[in-house]
């Protein structure tokens, strides 16, 4: 039973606005790459898990890939959908019941802020009707309080975004590939104070030799009573730990590694403030230390803690079903030493990914070149 799941092939379709494309065609292209990368045929796949937010059932993809009768588990967990699918596949492999699993995520969203009927989240109509059910409000309110409590500056929010856009310039699969300065980011249209347009992701999957990257741990947690999350109508003022903290701690415990041993990091940067908060909640720094880390450039590719080396959600956009798996793709690339001009120096051995989604769910992984 002590099998460790490994990622043996991966594929990606270029993130961006592809008005003319069926999202299933994009996903099928990425799956094809992953199969070639792994040296496998679709018929070899004996388990599948995947999810989308607005592109229908992920298993509709089977019409495009081939109707082999493979068990396909549809998963949906907001922006943590990709991480959730990965955990389902990991359990299937580790249990010994299955040997080759596909994990896939894809999406296609209309422009502007994502919107759902309030009933989808178990909320009353008045809440959405009066304009309170808007996700950027949550990110803005949370980071506003966090900046107040831990003395973080607007400049650090902008610098985190500036680094992500700089990283994406050399990522041919990214959506926004134009470098932006701190001043341009601060001066952009205000979406929800203090978050400007370029501090917020927009809703929006190469080939390499088969070197396994082991999935040392993957854990998911939902919100506990007492935390501020998306669509919290109320919460107790004595805040308990966030689902990101819980999921990250569980993932590190299962992996046998500590945050200090991680060489390359992906955290959910739905907005620039979320990146900074999530770095501390995942254990990579103390609350408030982000100011110095970001201001001194230590989260850049050549820094001590390289973060979102492919540009993160800010530069790639966030097609919900695909987004968490983009993080995995990037870390696999980095651990294989195939990051090209954005390769983290010094042969990184251990990587970490983190997603956070509405209404308060987080999934993390530790990936490693060592099983």
């Amino acid at each position, binding site marked *: 039973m002590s099998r460790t799941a490994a990622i043996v092939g991966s594929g990606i379709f270029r993130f961006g606005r592809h008005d003319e494309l069926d999202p299933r065609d994009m996903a099928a292209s990425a799956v094809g790459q992953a199969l070639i990368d792994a040296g496998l045929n679709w018929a070899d796949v004996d388990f599948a898990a995947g999810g989308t937010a607005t592109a229908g059932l992920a298993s509709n993809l089977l019409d495009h890939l081939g109707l082999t009768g493979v068990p396909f588990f549809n998963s949906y967990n907001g922006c943590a959908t990709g991480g959730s699918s990965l955990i389902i596949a990991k359990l299937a492999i580790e249990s010994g019941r299955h040997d080759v699993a596909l994990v896939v995520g894809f999406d296609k969203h209309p422009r502007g802020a994502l919107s759902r009927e309030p009933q989808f989240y178990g909320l009353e109509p008045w809440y959405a*009707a009066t304009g309170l059910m808007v996700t950027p409000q949550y990110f803005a309110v*949370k980071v506003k309080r966090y900046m107040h409590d831990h003395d973080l500056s607007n400049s650090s929010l902008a610098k985190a975004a500036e680094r992500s856009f700089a990283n994406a310039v050399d990522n041919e699969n990214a959506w926004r590939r134009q470098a932006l300065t701190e001043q341009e980011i601060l001066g952009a249209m205000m979406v*929800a104070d203090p978050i400007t347009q370029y501090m917020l992701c927009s809703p929006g999957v190469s080939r390499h030799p088969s070197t396994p990257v082991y999935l040392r741990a993957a854990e998911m947690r939902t919100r506990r009573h007492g935390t501020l999350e998306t669509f919290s109508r109320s919460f107790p003022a004595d805040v308990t730990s966030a689902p990101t903290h819980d999921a990250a701690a569980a993932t590190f415990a299962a992996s046998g590694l500590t945050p200090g041993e991680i060489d390359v990091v992906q955290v959910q940067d739905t907005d620039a403030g979320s990146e900074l908060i999530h770095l501390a909640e995942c254990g990579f720094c103390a609350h408030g230390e982000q100011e110095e880390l970001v201001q001194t450039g230590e989260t850049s590719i050549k820094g001590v803690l390289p973060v979102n080396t492919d540009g993160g959600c800010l530069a790639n956009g966030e097609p919900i079903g695909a987004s968490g798996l983009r993080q995995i793709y990037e870390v696999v690339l980095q651990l294989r030493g195939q990051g090209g001009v954005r390769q983290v120096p010094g042969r990184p051995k251990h990587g970490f990914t983190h997603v956070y989604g509405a209404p308060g769910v987080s999934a993390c992984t530790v990936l490693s070149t060592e099983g």
Partner: protein
Amino acid sequence: VISSETEVVLSPIAEGLFIQEDNGVVRLLASRCVSCESLTFPTQPTCPRCFAVEVKTVPLSSRGRLWSWTVQSFRPTSPPYEGPAEFEPFGVGYLEIDGLCVEGRLDLPPDGQPQIGASMETYAARFEGAVPALTYAFRSSGGDA
């Protein structure tokens, strides 16, 4: 309540969100768990902290302190948003009342920058939705909470 011919008496946007006392003071209604005493707004039939099934509806204090805030700067997607087609940015924040942080619309000061910790009160605000109605909102109360 007696209204003149030109004055329309507005209904609350939803039942059970708040009460308006005779002196005009507006108090939000929360559920208080009979076992662990934790408060939840809006009311719900079970306790989300300890899963007790016995809860009581209690009015919260009308005053609190601002926990955090932002400004909704673009018109939310409609539906489900029902505000006027001509959009005016509005404040959103959490007011800490009786140890509970409650989310709501927020009246912004002239400089648009309310202070975290500011004393505020709940009041009934006219909401120009598909059917005009009263919702609760937060505004500066000047004095201490």
